[in-house]
């Protein structure tokens, strides 16, 4: 039930961002510059806010921070993204690191 509300609300909010200019014209262009600037950094900020605890918290609970696959998988993804500019490859690398770690190191 909670999930149905979650999806419905996300759909409404997302549709609103897509349809607002159709209803109100290009008035949003007059948003102050600082809002535009803030919105530009929001994806990176939100992604990092979700990703970093998900990487760090399980790793901190392990015997040693670097004895956990998540920091290494995240490193592989970040480095590959910088080197190849290929999101798919970077994402696959992170999956592979976790998988191989679990198969060989437990």
């Amino acid at each position, binding site marked *: 039930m909670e999930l149905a509300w*979650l999806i419905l609300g996300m759909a409404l909010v997302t549709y609103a961002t897509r349809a607002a200019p159709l209803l109100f014209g290009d008035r949003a262009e007059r948003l102050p510059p600082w809002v535009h600037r803030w919105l530009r950094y*929001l*994806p990176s900020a*939100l*992604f990092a*806010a979700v990703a970093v605890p998900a990487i760090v918290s399980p790793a901190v609970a392990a015997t040693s921070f670097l004895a956990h696959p998540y920091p290494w998988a995240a490193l592989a993804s970040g480095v590959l993204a910088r080197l190849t500019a290929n999101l798919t490859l970077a*994402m696959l690398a992170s999956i592979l690191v976790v*998988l191989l770690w*679990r198969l060989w190191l437990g």
Partner: protein
Amino acid sequence: MTLMQQGWAAGFRAGLPLTLGVAPFAVAFGLAAREAGLGPISVGVMSLVVFAGSAQFLAVGMVQAGASAPQIWLATLFLNSRHLLMAMVLLPRLAGSRWWVRALAAHAISDEAFAVTSREPRAGAAFLIGAQSALALAWIGGGLVGVIVGAALPPAMAEAAGFSLIGFFVAVVALNARGLPDWGAATAGGGLALLLVGMLPRGWELLVAGIGAAAIGALLESRSRSASRDARAAG
């Protein structure tokens, strides 16, 4: 064929090659969503009615972090506000269509459909909807494949597939970072979330960290702008 059907078909053809790029992320979304407790119906419906990759990934990540629905709605609003800018660019191309075609075309605005439509000077609402229809096959179909296949995976593979979500976030942050403000926003986002977890009610640490860190990024950008202005003035 009517003019509208022709436009739709042209858009569909233009969107087809992009499905190859979308499919891996769609499957990854399905796998990660299953790890967060979503079933095939939730994944299929969400991909159809929300149809926004980054926001759906973020939602799954926030569900796993224990965030509530209203918190996720707010994050969705922030993250998808870039649609506003795309919709404004497309506005003149939609002007000639009937209201219900325009209403449907609004739902067809995604990063990929926007990209192919804005490349095509004569493309209108029908083209946009056609392109998004092709992308929908990959986005919804891939998500369903992920969530269904995920159920059959052994635990190690399921955990690894679930990590694709985090791998995706890290890759996007690393790829989009061009300068100090980007790295500053990302570092602050991660750092604040770690710092605030446990201090704020569950889920709020993510929103507060995201909102605050984006402000830090914007502040760093204004600073570097005024610094380069000063340098030019001094030179």
